[in-house]
């Protein structure tokens, strides 16, 4: 499943870039993300992702690895996790990019999400919809965080 989103933020690019690397503030914007910690500054992180569709709950302890970093412009990262209770795995390829548009910054991301295992029994349509909702909420939360304190 691939998702593309862009969010326009009334804040300078530098501020958005700094925000992305402020793990605590950034993680607070990811719905269902808890217990985030830095393993190696700028490179490796760990977090637990909790998501719910009706009675179906998943908890993925997730490792996040930053693969490429182009200062103030782009980050390429990969995340993967497994919920052994349910017998499902999640893999996320994330490409984040930043560009100026007038006095605003456009934060864009392309996410490739793979869900494997029993959770897939819920159906592609339901999972895609849920992932879409999560990304939308995330984009709005980032916008609110950055515009709120400008």
């Amino acid at each position: 499943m691939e998702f593309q989103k862009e969010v326009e933020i009334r804040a300078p690019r530098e501020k958005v870039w700094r925000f992305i690397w402020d793990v605590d503030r950034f993680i607070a914007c990811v719905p269902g993300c808890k217990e985030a910690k830095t393993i190696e500054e700028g490179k490796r992180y760990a977090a637990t992702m909790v998501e719910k569709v009706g009675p179906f709950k998943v908890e993925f302890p997730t490792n996040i690895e930053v693969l490429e970093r182009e200062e103030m412009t782009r980050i390429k990262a990969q995340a993967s996790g497994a919920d052994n209770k349910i017998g499902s795995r999640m893999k996320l390829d994330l490409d984040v990019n930043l560009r100026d548009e007038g006095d605003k910054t456009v934060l864009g991301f392309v996410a490739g999400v793979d869900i494997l295992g029993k959770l897939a029994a819920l159906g592609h349509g339901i999972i895609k919809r849920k992932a879409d909702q999560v990304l939308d909420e995330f984009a709005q939360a980032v916008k609110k965080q950055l515009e709120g304190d400008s």
Partner: protein
Amino acid sequence: MLRRFRLEEPESVSEVSELLGRFGDSAKIYAGGTELLLAMKEGLVQYERLINVKKLKCKDVTLESGQVTIGALCTHHELETSQAIKENLPAFAKLEHNVANVRVRQVGTIGGNLCFAEPHADPGTLLIALDAKMIAEKSASTREISAEKFFIDAFETALEPDEVLTQIVIPAPTASARNAYLKFGYLERPSVGVAVAFNLNGQISSMRIAVGCAGPAPRRVQEAEALFEGKSKDDAERNLAEAGLLAGRAAEAISDLHGSQEYKEHIVGVLLKRAFLSALS
């Protein structure tokens, strides 16, 4: 494999509600078990406690004061064979007759079907078109939820965590009432279901159209209803193609194994036309 769980056997709705409140997400109501036990065996959900509600007295179908009241614990088989349902709501009896297979219909309950809110289930769609009300009870209160507002999303309903669905109340159709439900699919569960309900007194009134299975939850498609309201039978028939397009777009269809979004939108239009003509005949 099914993991160990504790079975509670309350005898009243308030006991069920109290247990739900006390144990929260670690407990779940168990009625027919046709959906729940499958999900548990697959390991998709785990509960420490199942609350068996079969001892509750919610198993009757009654016709009183112009409304049909269905106990939430009625099985699909009881509904497909109920005289009161067959006489007053033949479209609903037919729908129940076509739910899944005979093994599921023997044990699966209407309440369990509605509360599990599996996106490809049939009954919710027709109940929305028939303007049914769900009766939700808990220890100290009872409230009515319209079928239209009952389904929130895939596997999610408007019930509060400690509420129990006890009855479904459907206005008994009058002599001028027409309704129908049609579904189509090529897998075990339907890809699309469409229900229509209206009154015909020379012209069409109180038109209600609902679409299910296509998206995450059944929904009323008011966008298409206006094309029928106040129209004669012939004028309405001329509007069927346009209404089908509107209903398809409004159905919030999603692409999945049961078909692409575009395919489902097309089938909504086809079924709407057929359901309308079937309701007239």
